[in-house]
């Protein structure tokens, strides 16, 4: 007896394989295959033997090489070993994890904190666990993949509103049954275009319809608001936000995710949130680095000021050179350059990397409305000199890629 032919489950990806091969056949470098041979500092690495300025790492506060952060990790590695080999609810909670959650409570001024193994899992876990069958999740159309995936994993009904559109959110909330549980999911900073949400208006509408509110501050932690808590703090809506989700892999400079809240029943989530329960906890070194970094970020006022200064320099410089930007003013530490099509974007990206500048290339469906972007994220440790080099390289690359620049008004 012979077996039937095996159907290739990867065949569904043939169109994408062909598209990617087509892109590379034009002779450009693979935008999704960069290898950093050496990392010299939060702003510089060696890529293909070339000294490269990093402008696409989300390392906003430059904590990855902070001496205190590294020393904390070294000590924890020695004292607690390489890994926990277990779930937070079994053998995977060390004194290091408890200390990190204390640091988070202090940073946010909230009574509860849960540290997840990644930021993706924090959103996946919170969104899917808070809303269950019969509840509604109302999310912004431009939400991060981790929020969409959390929606998929929940048994709730999912309603999507137009990006940052207060009237559209209200219209959609009005269609929901008043007696049903509702979770409105927002982000402080949206990472593709680098734009900021009008949280006071959105949160007010959510509250007027009896919804709980979760705000993802992945790209806002560290440099928005008096204590660096995020956009929700800067815009003064802290009292009306029920859950704040964040990540260690941006301003904190390590890896991991978290949720903080004042909800009195918050602690039960440790037992019911599957992406928290059914995975190994962060290694002691990583969580100890995170704790030290979070504590230092509480008072990093000079770094915050420097980050905004460097961001304004890059945004203003690109604008003055005729690049089209996703936001008219620098709203966050992400500056997104609008590109006309896939070919020009790839060529421009490839030229920049050859010139020693790393940025992110972003394309649909990760981007909203089918736009192509070259996305820059700024670090507080970028010097004015580095920003000026980047600006010159952008101009040079635009010429080489024949990207039309606009007359400066």
């Amino acid at each position, binding site marked *: 007896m012979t077996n039937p032919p095996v159907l290739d489950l990867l065949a569904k990806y043939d169109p994408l394989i062909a598209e990617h091969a087509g892109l590379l056949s034009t002779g450009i470098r693979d935008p999704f295959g960069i290898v950093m041979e050496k990392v010299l500092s939060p702003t510089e690495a060696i890529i293909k033997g070339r000294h490269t300025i990093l402008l696409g790492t989300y390392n906003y506060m430059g904590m990855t090489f902070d001496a205190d952060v590294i020393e904390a990790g070294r000590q924890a590695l020695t004292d607690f070993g390489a890994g926990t080999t277990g779930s937070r609810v079994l053998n995977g909670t060390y004194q290091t994890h408890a200390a990190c959650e204390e640091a988070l409570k202090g940073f946010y001024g909230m009574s509860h904190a849960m540290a997840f193994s990644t930021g993706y899992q924090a959103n996946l876990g919170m969104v899917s666990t808070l809303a269950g069958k019969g509840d*509604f999740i109302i999310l912004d*159309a431009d939400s991060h993949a981790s929020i969409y995936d959390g*929606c*998929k994993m929940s048994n*709730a*009904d*999912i*309603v*999507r509103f*137009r990006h940052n559109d207060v009237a559209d959110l209200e*219209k*959609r909330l009005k*269609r*929901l049954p008043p007696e049903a549980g509702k979770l409105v999911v927002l982000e402080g900073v949206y990472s593709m275009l680098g734009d900021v949400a009008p949280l006071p208006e959105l949160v007010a509408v959510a509250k007027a319809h009896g919804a709980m509110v979760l705000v993802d501050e992945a790209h806002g932690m560290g440099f928005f608001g008096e204590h660096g808590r995020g956009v929700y703090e800067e815009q003064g809506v802290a009292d009306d936000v029920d859950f704040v989700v964040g990540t260690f892999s941006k301003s904190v400079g390590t890896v991991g995710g978290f949720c903080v809240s004042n909800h009195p029943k918050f602690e039960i989530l440790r037992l019911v949130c599957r992406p928290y329960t059914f995975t190994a906890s962060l290694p002691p070194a990583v969580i100890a680095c995170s704790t030290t970094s979070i504590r230092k970020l509480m008072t990093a006022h000079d770094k915050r000021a420097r980050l905004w200064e460097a961001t304004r320099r890059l945004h203003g410089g690109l604008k003055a050179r005729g690049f089209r930007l996703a936001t008219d003013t620098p709203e966050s530490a992400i500056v997104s350059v609008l590109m006309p099509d896939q070919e020009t974007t790839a060529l421009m990206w490839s030229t920049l990397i050859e010139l020693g500048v790393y940025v992110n290339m972003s394309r*649909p*469906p990760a981007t*909203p*409305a*089918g736009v192509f972007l070259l996305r820059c994220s700024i670090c507080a440790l970028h010097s004015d000199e580095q920003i000026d080099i980047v600006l010159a390289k952008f101009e040079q690359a635009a010429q080489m890629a024949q990207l039309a620049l606009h007359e400066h008004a």
Partner: protein
Amino acid sequence: MTDRATVYARIIELIEPLNTKKVALTEATSFAGDMEMDSLTVMDLVASMEDEWDIMIPLNLLPDLETIGQVADAVAGLLAKKG
């Protein structure tokens, strides 16, 4: 009350501007397969239908709504329930 034929006709009008491949639109035409619409376009299209009839079509229903006919059935059903 809006009957299914009226709903179907209006859905075709809403789809037409997004039908970039210019495929023939029938009850059996599928959004992803025949029209090659990406998921974002489909979600935007659903939003426009929600606003057209002041109804709610949760995103978690979309996997079951592959063809124009299935969407017309769903919208007509929601309108009937609404009364």
